[in-house]
C-alpha cells in the first residue's frame, strides 16, 4: 500500500523541507516585523496605531486563501510596474510569493501577541528598574524583553502551529510543499493514502514543536511559582 512512499521519497523530502522552511522563515521574519507593528499598535490614539489596526483588521478578516490569490494572480496584472521596481521575482516565483503571503499574514497575528505582552508589563517595574539606576535601554533589555518573551511564549507556540497549517495553502499556487506533493501524487496515483502520509508529516512537526515549546516554557518557572 505504501509502495508509492518509497518510490517518491525524494518528492516527500523536498515537500517536507519546503513546508518547514516556509513555516520557520515566515515565523521568524514575521516576528521581527511584528515587534514594531505591535508596539505601534499598543500606542492607542496615534495615527500609527490606527494604520496598524487597519492592517491587522483586514488581514484577520480575510481568508489566507484569498490573500494568496490576490498576491499571486493579482500581481500578474502589474507585471510591468513590478519588473521596473525589481520586485517581479517575488511574485513570479510561487515559493517566494507564498512566503510573502505567509509573512504578511502572520505579522498581523503576531503583532497582536506582541501588543498583549507589552500592555501586560506593569509600569511599576520600569520605576523599580530606574530606582536601581538602569538606563532606558537596560530596562528594555533586562526587564521588558524577558518578561514579554515569557508571556508571549504560549501564544507564539500556538501561532507557529497555525502558521504551519496555513502554509499548506501555498499548494494552491503550485508550491511543492508537503501538501503540494500530496496533491500531485494523488493526481498521479489516485491513491488516497498519500494524504495520510502528508497528515503524518504535519502531525510530526506539531508534536516536535510542542515538545520544544514545553522545554522553553519550563525555563520560566517564575510564571507559576509554588
Amino acid at each position: 500500500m505504501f509502495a508509492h512512499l518509497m518510490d517518491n521519497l525524494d518528492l516527500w523530502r523536498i515537500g517536507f523541507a519546503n513546508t518547514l522552511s516556509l513555516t520557520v522563515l515566515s515565523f521568524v521574519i514575521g516576528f521581527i516585523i511584528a515587534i514594531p507593528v505591535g508596539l505601534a499598535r499598543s500606542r492607542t490614539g496615534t495615527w500609527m496605531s490606527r494604520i496598524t489596526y487597519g492592517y491587522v483588521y483586514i488581514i484577520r478578516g480575510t481568508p489566507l486563501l484569498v490573500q494568496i490569490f490576490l498576491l499571486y494572480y493579482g500581481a500578474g496584472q502589474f507585471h510591468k510596474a513590478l519588473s521596473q521596481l525589481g520586485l517581479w521575482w517575488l511574485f513570479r516565483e510561487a515559493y517566494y510569493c507564498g512566503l510573502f503571503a505567509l509573512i504578511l499574514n502572520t505579522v498581523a497575528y503576531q503583532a497582536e501577541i506582541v501588543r498583549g505582552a507589552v500592555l501586560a508589563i506593569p509600569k511599576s517595574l520600569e520605576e523599580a528598574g530606574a530606582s536601581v539606576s538602569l538606563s532606558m535601554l537596560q530596562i528594555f533589555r533586562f526587564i521588558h524583553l524577558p518578561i514579554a518573551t515569557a508571556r508571549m511564549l504560549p501564544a507564539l507556540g500556538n501561532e507557529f502551529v497555525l502558521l504551519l497549517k496555513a502554509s499548506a495553502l501555498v499548494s494552491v499556487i503550485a508550491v511543492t510543499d508537503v501538501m503540494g506533493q500530496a496533491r500531485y501524487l494523488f493526481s498521479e496515483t489516485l491513491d488516497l493514502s498519500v494524504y495520510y502520509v502528508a497528515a503524518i508529516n504535519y502531525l510530526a512537526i506539531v508534536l516536535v514543536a510542542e515538545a520544544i515549546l514545553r522545554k522553553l516554557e519550563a525555563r520560566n518557572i517564575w510564571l507559576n511559582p509554588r
Partner: protein
Amino acid sequence: MAHSDQKTPAKIIISISALNKWYGDLHVLRDIDLDVKKGERIVIAGPSGSGKSTLIRCINYLEKYQGGKIVVDGVELIDDRKIIENIRREVGMVFQSFNLFPHLTILENCTLGPIQGLDLPKEQAIEKAMHFLNKVNIPEQADKYPGQLSGGQQQRVAIARSLCMNPDVMLFDEPTSALDPEMVKEVLDIMVSLAKEGMTMLCVTHEMGFAKEVADRVIFMDEGQIMEQNNPVEFFTNPQHERTKEFLKQIFF
C-alpha cells in the same frame, strides 16, 4: 511654615526649594521647601492624596516637576539622563508594592542594578547581595523567585536590593501598608536597624510607633503642602494645626 531651625554643621544632602507640581489642573505639590541633613531620619505623614508619594518620587525623578529646584548631594536635578542615573545611584527607593522583578531570582534582583548600573564585577555584586540578604535575614531564599515569597519577605528583598546600590539616602513609600499585619514588624525591624546605623531616610508611613522610635523629624502634609514639622515628641504631644490634630486622632482612633 516651620523651618528646621537647628544650625548644625551636618551636611545637607537633599535640598528642596519652592517645589511645585501639577497633574494637569491638579496642583499636587505647593511650594515645598525641605532640607535633609546627612543621617537625618524623616517621617512624612498625611491624609491620602496629600502628595506624599509624589514628593518623594520627585527626589529621584520618577516624577517630573514644573517649578522649584531639588539638589541632591550638591547636584541639581535636571532633565539629563546622566545626572538622573547618577542621582538614582545615590538614592535608593522602596515601593509600597515591592516591585521586585518577577522573572529574576532574589539574588539576581539584587545584582542587576550593581552589575548593569554600577558596572560592578559579577562576583563582587553577588558577594554584596548576599551580605545584604543576610542583613535582612533571608539569605536562604536567594535562589527563589519573588512569587514564591511572602509579602514581608519580598519587601525585605526590596530593601536589600536598594542597599546593594550603596545609596546615601533611602526613600520609603508606605513600605508596610501592603503587608498583612503579622509581617509589618519584620520589615519595620529592618528599617529601625538601618536608621540606627545612620542611614539618611525619608519614610512615608503611618506607623507612628516607628516615627516615635527613630524619626528626627515628622512632617505632616496636606493638600500638597507641608503643614507642620517637628520632632516626634512635640509633634505627637503638641500638634499646632487643626488638621494635624484631626489626622492624629484618626490614626490613633
